[in-house]
């Protein structure tokens, strides 16, 4: 009995020791910022991110800029899709997250129809829950797009999404799973363009790029800033009807911290353009650099970090 207890104790201690030796950031420590509920102003700030590289990179940039202003900021990368990280923002697990104006509009209003960047921004302000606040949007835009390979574009004579109308039935579309259900996704393609693909394959990230390249899908829903579009000579089909609206990068924060976070994050928004974010993304996705390092270089170059 004694032996039993002591061995149990030793094992427990070993596991605790092994996991505690790196400092106080163990995941079960309820006093860590990640678990401490909606912290009122002055405390630590956790920047969440979606599970794709650009969002992770932006979260690192936000956190770095906040730290430079003396705010105790950390990141919570790869939380998941919008449906999940907004829940985390709501329950206080995170205090800020990089977002896209139009996507927020579609999220809170299924019939959202604004496409002009300014109008999108102002009308989304009115749609947000009371406890959230959008800071200033950046000029940088990362929109959804439908891309095909150069060969497909040439052989099928595709320039715009509308050109797919009579051909999509024979084609397969690869896209993240959420694209199937979102109003500006598969349903939107059908409603706005009358385009319905013959089959749908749920893929994300570089796996989707590879699938398009290798011919497992004929068209793919890839973000416009994705460096693999240029690298592989993919053709982005023009969204003539503005189905995907405007998707300016914008910090979404909890309202009770917005004043405190605004100076640093608005400065970041000011420094971001579509070319800048595409260039940075190329470094993490193509050159496989760490988001943290790329963010630090960007902040330094812009006197933000």
């Amino acid at each position: 009995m004694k032996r039993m207890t002591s061995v149990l104790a030793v094992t427990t201690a070993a596991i605790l020791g092994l996991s505690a030796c790196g400092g106080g950031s163990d995941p079960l420590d309820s006093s860590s910022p990640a678990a401490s509920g909606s912290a009122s102003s002055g405390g630590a700030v956790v920047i969440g991110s979606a599970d794709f590289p650009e969002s992770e990179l932006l979260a690192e940039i936000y956190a770095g800029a906040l730290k430079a202003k003396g705010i105790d900021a950390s990141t919570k990368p790869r939380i998941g899709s919008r449906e999940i990280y907004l829940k985390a923002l709501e329950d206080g697990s995170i205090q800020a997250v990089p977002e896209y104006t139009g996507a927020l509009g579609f999220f809170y209003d299924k019939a959202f129809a604004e496409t002009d960047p300014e109008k999108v921004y102002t009308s989304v302000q009115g749609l947000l829950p009371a406890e959230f606040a959008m800071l200033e949007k950046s000029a940088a835009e990362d929109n959804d797009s439908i891309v095909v390979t150069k060969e497909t574009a040439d052989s099928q004579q595709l320039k715009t999404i509308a050109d797919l109308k009579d051909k999509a039935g024979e084609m397969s579309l690869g896209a993240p799973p959420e694209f199937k259900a979102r109003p500006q996704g598969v349903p939107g393609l059908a409603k706005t363009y009358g385009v319905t693909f013959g089959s749908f394959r749920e893929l994300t990230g570089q796996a989707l790029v590879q699938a398009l390249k290798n011919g497992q899908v004929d068209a793919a829903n890839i973000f416009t800033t994705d460096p693999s579009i240029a690298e592989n000579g993919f053709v982005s089909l023009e969204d003539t009807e503005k189905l995907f609206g405007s998707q300016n990068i914008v910090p979404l924060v909890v309202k009770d911290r917005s004043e405190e976070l605004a100076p640093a994050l608005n400065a970041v928004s000011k420094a971001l353009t579509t070319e800048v974010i595409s260039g940075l993304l190329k470094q993490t996705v193509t050159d496989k650099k760490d988001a943290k390092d790329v963010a630090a270089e960007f902040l330094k170059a812009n006197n933000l970090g």
Partner: protein
Amino acid sequence: MIASILEWLTSSATWSGDSGLGARIVQHLWYSLLAVAIAAVVAIPLGLWVGHTGRAKWLVTLANSLRAVPTLGLLFAVALWLGPKFSSDLAFLIPSVVVLVVLVIPPILSGVYAGVEAVDPAARDAARGMGMRGMQVVRQVEIPNALPLILSGLRSAFLQVIATATVAAYVGLGGLGRYLIDGIKTGDYVSTAGGAIVVSLLALVVDGLLALVQRAVVSPGLTGGTVGRSRRGRVLPEDTTATGEARERAMDGVRGPAGGMSEVGGTVDTPKA
């Protein structure tokens, strides 16, 4: 929540179409069957050979250590590696099946090996004394005697593969995993829960069917007192319900002959009392 899950499960919209529940179940079973079939072709002869000759027991240990490989990681690695090599949908199917095969080789191999190894040496000697040779001993004595453990290995393989075939959805395939992943991605937890329930039910139904098969094919000479007489040295209380027994035996494979990582099979049999 429970009401909406029930509604989801019984709604005809859920079931119909190419991406309906019916089609997803068929896909799910297809991946599972394919994986178990391939694994069985590899693991059954191997297990018979190791058990029969007593050689290369490290193979069983090696197979068991495969259990430590995270399924998700293996899937991603194989998908990255093989993806560009195929231009058809095989690029998604092969990685998923490879991962599932790796997952179910250990329980099948351990079951076969433990079954053959546990055959009473006296029975083997008697067979030899009757003039039987190597393969004859294997076919007429060892396999029939080992059948209960071979089958529980297979049943445990099926339970695991059905619960895990959901991973195929990570790399763009169908199956019931679609409900889990798509549900999470779109915040539709009702279909996530519904999908999970269907996975569990499917596992139980398949296991129940295999239990019936097991009952039908195992020699009546073995069913009565096997458990009591075998080397496991434990007598289980009678369990009268078919499904109860089904699961109980199936878990055997998950935990029993499969054993720990660094010992050859049968770790659970070891208390030398």
